[in-house]
């Protein structure tokens, strides 16, 4: 079990570190960093599904017999792009939040929000 599944366990540990950072940290930039850690764990998990012992990169050549599976790699190429796109949008939002609230700590932003609401009598 250990010899055949160690990769999965290590990658799950990685994902969970990322997820923990996303949920537990109040700093928005840290959240985004955590998000990318989490996603990298998932990417590696996908790639590990396609790996074959003794296989080689799926670029066909005459003197190679076994290849790893190309499909997970294609999926992860797409997913990496999606990940960086999300990161860019998140960072842009963080910049705007900093410009209008003066902080990127979620707790403080919420605090200032509560002040807003008292002023205009709304509630959420």
């Amino acid at each position, binding site marked *: 079990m250990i010899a055949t599944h160690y990769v999965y366990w290590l990658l799950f540990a990685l994902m969970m570190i990322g997820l923990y950072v996303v949920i537990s940290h109040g700093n928005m930039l840290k959240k985004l960093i955590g998000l990318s850690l989490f996603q990298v764990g998932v990417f590696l998990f996908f790639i590990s599904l396609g790996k074959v012992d003794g296989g080689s990169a799926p*670029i066909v050549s005459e003197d*190679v017999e076994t290849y790893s599976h190309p499909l997970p790699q294609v999926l992860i190429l797409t997913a990496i792009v999606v990940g960086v796109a999300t990161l860019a949008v998140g960072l842009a939002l963080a910049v705007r939040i900093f410009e209008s609230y003066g902080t990127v700590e979620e707790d403080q932003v919420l605090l200032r929000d509560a002040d807003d609401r008292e002023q205009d009598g709304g509630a959420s």
Partner: protein
Amino acid sequence: MIFAVMAALLVTMVLALVRAFLGPDLYNRILAINMFGTKTVLFVAVAGFLFGRPDFLDIGILYALVNFVAVVAVLRLTHHDEPATGRNGDGHS
């Protein structure tokens, strides 16, 4: 022999990693990460020979490039902001 080189690279990576963790200031970290980057370039080259398919050295070129970009970016974008982080900015909480 190639295996020994690979082992040496991995050990050096770990050493550079420790330096990157310990800091103690920004410049030490950048130095460690820059060195780590060079090691990954070598890693890709050596791994190609180790597993018998040295056709993918393009990746090595790219690593060398982005490594350089990253170092320049760090210097360019961290410089003014807080010189304080430079001196005693140890990261561990």
